């Protein structure tokens, strides 16, 4: 695809110079929505979440991709899924994940001895979730980080993070048996792809 350049004229007309027409256009739009939402039965197109109402679970209104407090998933045997690959701590722009690896002495070999996220430093970007090759870390709790009395309480360790966790059913490596059908085509972002 060729990328075109759109030329925008920056010369101001008299109409722009006066400003008033633009202001009135804006006011008109606001007024239109005001009357529509107040006068239409069923309140038009706005939706107000009634916080605090016992019948309402705020989480139902959050989009699926909302990024909340982190959690760590576990395997079928209840041990942590994370293999301490450090991909998340490497990609984290806030540098707020600290992991120490240990040898599990079994076929899965590596696991985090400690896994600490400083939620105060976290900028909630979700890169860690994207980077994780094992579906071990997720931000789908739909929970906001609650204010804490001390800074130390906002630093979550492996136990805290796993207490929110659940079993993950992803196949290690992310490939299911019928991967051929699901397999994405070669990634066009890698321009040096020889095919």
């Amino acid at each position: 695809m060729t990328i075109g350049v759109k030329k925008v004229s920056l010369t101001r007309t008299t109409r722009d110079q006066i400003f008033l027409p633009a202001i009135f256009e804006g006011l008109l739009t606001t007024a239109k929505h005001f009357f529509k939402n107040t006068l239409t039965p069923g309140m038009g197109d706005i939706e107000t979440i009634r916080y605090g109402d016992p019948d309402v679970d705020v989480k139902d209104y959050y989009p699926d991709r909302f990024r909340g407090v982190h959690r760590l998933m576990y395997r079928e045997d209840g041990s942590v899924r994370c293999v301490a690959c450090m991909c998340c701590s490497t990609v984290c722009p806030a540098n707020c994940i600290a992991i120490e690896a240990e040898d599990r002495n079994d076929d899965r070999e590596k696991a985090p001895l400690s896994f600490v996220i400083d939620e105060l430093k976290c900028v909630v970007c979700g890169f860690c979730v994207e980077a994780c090759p094992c579906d071990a870390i997720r931000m789908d709790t739909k929970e906001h980080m609650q204010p804490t009395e001390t800074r130390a309480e906002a630093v979550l360790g492996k136990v805290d993070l796993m207490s929110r966790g659940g079993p993950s059913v992803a196949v290690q490596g992310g490939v299911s048996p019928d991967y051929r059908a699901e397999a994405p085509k070669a990634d066009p972002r890698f321009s040096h792809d020889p095919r």
Partner: protein
Amino acid sequence: MANEIHPSATPIVAGPAPKSALTPPRAPNVPADPTPGEETVTVNIDGEDVAVRPGTNVLEAAKLVGKDICHFCYHQGLSIAASCRQCLVQIDKMPKLQPSCQVGVRPGMVVHTNSEAVLKARREMLEFTLKNHPVDCPICDKAGECTLQRHYMDHDHKLTRVDVPKIRKAKHKDIGREIVLDAERCILCSRCIRFCEEIPGTSELTMVSRGEHQSIDVHSGQRLDNAYSLNTVDVCPVGALTSKDFRFAIRAWELSKVDTTCNGCGTGCAVELHTKHEQAYRVVPREDHSVNGHWMCDEGRSTYKSLDAADRVRHATVDGEQVALPDAIAIAAKRLRGKHIAVVFSATATNEANLALAQLADLLGGERFVLGRPPGRGDEILRDRDKNPNSAGALAATGAVSKHEGELALELAGRAYEAVIVLADSGELSEVSLGGLRGITSVCLADRHTPLADACTILLPAASWAEVLGSYTNRQGKLRSVQPAWRAEGDRKHRADLIRDLLLAMGQRDVPTARERTQRLAEAHQHRQLSRLAQDPTPARPTLLRWANSRG
């Protein structure tokens, strides 16, 4: 070793005289750039004519024009196996693609390293290599410095087409003192086998089974326990052989490296020190054909452990009290004057520090000693019996007067001196001798807490070998450079600078700084790299490791 006096029968072996000279390991394949005046062969690589040394191979020749032909089994320091077929290139007038590692250059040869056919072969060989590869990069210690990862990203970059189960082999098999084998990740390049046959000559490793089930293993009843075993981890292009010590400690991409010299013995192998945040994680060899070839011994790799942050001396102490450094210097200068003194040079400290101490000894007079680590095992390959990096340099700096360290131990035990200044914290003295240090003015320039350092009454915080720019003189008489991996924390300073401070406090003028001493030494030995660093230490800053496996 509670009450024994250190045996005087273990003198420091210094100077080239009493030991076998070092024969640097000869690499079977040398770089292709011709030495001036040598006859050359001209070959054409991707349209570029280049004059190379005769007898070299196409792969080395291609490096001269900046083409790094992707390869697994070829290693400059090992014989050629040509088993991986990853390095195929097209050569005019040859009907088939040729392994560039094995084909020698001929006059008028025309080589294509990037033609359609070559790219296709490369991709297909890679796919073949990956057929049974577990691709467990997340838990693989080599990730980030893995040749297979790098070649995959550069040349293949395709999803797998394999939909049958992969062949399983032994995982995390303990095959030696230092090494864990993961046979699944092995790509059967045989570098490790060739290393064990050709360098230590111990041949512990072999291939077992055939076809898809072929894998690397130790000969039955043997273990990979030779004194150079960790080099197999370096030559292994993938994560099949991993070091127990480094395993899971940190990811390779988090490390920064600095080029320095091993301080494990008198050979002074060229090494890289890998660090993160003022903490060292490993030592790996660096190519230096005049000393260590591509290799180093296993003992030398553990030298980084002496840099442990927990033991560091960060501030000066006088009689057990923490004191600001200038005050400590002033007190030391005052107490050292006009006493019957023993000046203890160190075979583990840099030339600069020893030369500075020599200047102090000239001023104060007194008896001169050289103290160092006790001798250990040596062999004909690299290891020297003398476990000090700078015995030759220390001895040269000491000048004519010199007594054995055994006598020092005896004399200290007998309280023969009123004052002692010790240049470094290493060296083993018996309890009795250490007791002799406690009662008198004893100044130690220590970078870590050792029994010797803690026995001294005045402790000056010195920078360790990972924090200074300096030099050692190895057993061949070569100047070896040491570079800083991080800035010295707290009050720690180069030993030569601490002694300079002492000299200034004693009223001396125009004492050269450590950097000036380095500069002079480098010029005297015509060591260009060190001389450049002394003028501008910026390039000595550690660089982040990215695709670090440049060691093969």
